[in-house]
């Protein structure tokens, strides 16, 4: 069995053209993650540039309104660039710079990872190209302009379903053309080893902070952690520190789209089958012949037919639970959090909020839920307006 396994999941299923690049990356990561200079520089960027630690906010109105468990929001939406993506990106782009790379490339779905990568590349002086599905460039036109403003070249991907999966295909193809000067900043805990481990380690800061903050505020650990999950980077970032704490329930919310029993869904762990794609063994939405299925969600960031291998493992051993949240439920939660707390969540994060709204009333008042609020919703305002039948002009 090859390297980078979580149980049977993970591995390195990529063309030979990329093997030297992932090996080089693994060696560099293992070296620099313990390098005092690298660590100090990354910590300084996280603190002074990204604005960490992010707040753990007690959502008092929501708690009172739902009448059950106490609800805390881990405010990754307040990070620079507006989501948790910056944590991983600062780590990887800094690593690329230490490796002597002069150019970074990345895929993006909603545009959050693309914006974060373009931002870090601008800051650290690397050239940057982003690959984004054509359909996503239309859903998230503002983020496309943002990336260009940050000096990145945005390549519109018109192959396949023209969404996140195709953007990953195209970024992998581009990487295989130019491994010598280019690092692929993969945006989630997916792809070939070492990416699932590197991205998890860079996102682990979320859960580490939550642990410290909740112990300080409440003097005890939370009962439930809830996060949305596409590839699964913000979820693993929130969960990882708590995996060894058996009394903390971990719940990942997949995008059900129109519902898990319809064709318009992206709930991989609910309907996917074991497969091997994008460098990893994991679960994928696919047909009986192993062709990757077109998936759908209102959220461009969760619109992916696979799931990170560590989540597949946590699912298999029953350590984490995975539930599916529909477009409708997510949009309701999007409006709810906006009205009740004055916080407009990313439509991705709204999937986690939606499940908390179901769960909290069934829990005791002295119990605690922490929701990973992975991003802010400014980018989604126009598309939510359209969903509700309102035409607005930006």
């Amino acid at each position, binding site marked *: 069995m090859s390297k980078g396994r979580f149980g049977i999941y993970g*591995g390195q299923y990529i*063309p*030979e*053209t990329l*093997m030297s690049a992932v090996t080089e990356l693994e060696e560099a990561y293992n070296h620099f993650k313990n390098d005092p200079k690298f660590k100090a520089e990354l910590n300084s960027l996280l603190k002074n540039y990204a604005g960490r630690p992010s707040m753990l906010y007690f959502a008092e109105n929501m708690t009172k309104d739902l009448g059950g468990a106490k609800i805390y929001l881990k405010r990754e939406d307040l990070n620079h660039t507006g989501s948790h993506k910056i944590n991983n990106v600062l780590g990887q782009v800094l690593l690329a710079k230490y490796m002597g790379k002069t150019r970074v490339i990345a895929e993006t779905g909603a545009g959050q990872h693309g914006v974060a990568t373009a931002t870090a590349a601008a800051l650290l002086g690397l050239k940057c190209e982003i690959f984004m599905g054509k359909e996503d460039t239309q859903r998230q036109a503002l983020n496309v302009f943002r990336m260009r403003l940050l000096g990145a070249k945005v390549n519109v991907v018109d192959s*396949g379903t023209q969404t996140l999966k195709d953007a990953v*295909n195209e970024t992998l193809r581009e990487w295989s053309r130019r491994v010598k000067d280019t690092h692929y900043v993969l945006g989630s805990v997916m792809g070939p080893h070492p990416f699932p481990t590197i991205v998890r380690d860079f996102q682990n800061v979320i859960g580490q902070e939550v642990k410290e903050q909740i112990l300080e505020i409440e003097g005890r650990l939370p009962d439930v952690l809830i996060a949305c999950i596409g590839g699964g980077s913000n979820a693993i970032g929130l969960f990882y520190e708590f995996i060894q704490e058996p009394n903390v329930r971990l719940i990942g919310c997949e995008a059900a789209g129109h519902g898990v029993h319809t064709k318009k869904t992206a709930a991989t762990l609910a309907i996917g089958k074991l497969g091997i794609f994008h460098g990893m063994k994991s679960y994928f939405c*696919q047909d009986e012949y192993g062709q990757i299925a077109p998936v759908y969600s209102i959220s461009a960031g969760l619109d992916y037919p696979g799931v990170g291998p560590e989540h597949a493992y946590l699912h298999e051993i029953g350590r984490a639970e995975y539930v599916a949240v529909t477009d409708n439920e997510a949009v309701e939660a999007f409006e709810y959090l906006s009205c009740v707390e004055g916080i407009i969540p990313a439509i991705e994060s709204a999937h986690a909020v939606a499940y908390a709204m179901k769960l909290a009333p069934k829990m005791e008042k002295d119990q605690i839920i922490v929701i990973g609020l992975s991003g802010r919703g400014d980018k989604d305002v126009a598309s939510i307006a359209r969903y509700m039948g309102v035409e607005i002009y930006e």
Partner: protein
Amino acid sequence: MNKLHKAFAKGKAFIPFITAGDPSLETTRELVLQMAEAGADLIELGIPFSDPVAEGKVIQSASIRALSHGITVDHIFSMLRDIRKTCSIPIALMTYINPIFAYGVHRFLNNCKDAGVDALIVPDLPFEEKDELMPFCLKCGVYLISMIAPTSDKRIHMIAREAQGFIYCVSSMGVTGVRKNISSDAEQMVRLVKEVNDIPCAVGFGISTPEQAARIAKFADGVIVGSAIVKIIEQYGSKCIPHVIEYVRTMKKAVKKG
């Protein structure tokens, strides 16, 4: 009985690639039979996959065309069994690991054996992961072809030592597709392979002209051409056969000169 050795037994081999089911399985079947007649030494037949990450635009489009006609692995195996009634040219199937995995590895290899498939080429299954297929390939007498790339460097000896059938040398970085200039890395790759294993080396990726093919054939045991042929198929559709055959004849001649 595996027939792969026949491909390299009569001098330099010409290896055309086509995607099964593009534009139709009937055309694919005819192409295989007539390319064999026209001097192809081994045929690389692609099973279409929705997300072929090692392919350029031309072969991506061929996969999409084939899939849009509802072509499945079962259809392809049944076509191959039909071909085997009259034709014994060595055949290598090229596809990605997920279609094989989803079909069931054991079932897939048993079908390969029944349909007279001699080798498998799986671009997203590198050396480190070959155990997904190797035990079943050995059991069914189907070669799992190893690939090496310009960045393989230190990996070449490791891969070559365990390689079987032939080695697929990727001439240049990136994905499949016609290129004006073929890098000179390939010659060095072949030399490194031969240091540890006396195994045929076929070079592919980017080759389209007789001049390129002749130059490659000077140092390699075989020349693989895909996108250039798939382009002809794309252009002429169901009327592609005479055009493809003429091209195969020209390329074969160039390779023999090498």
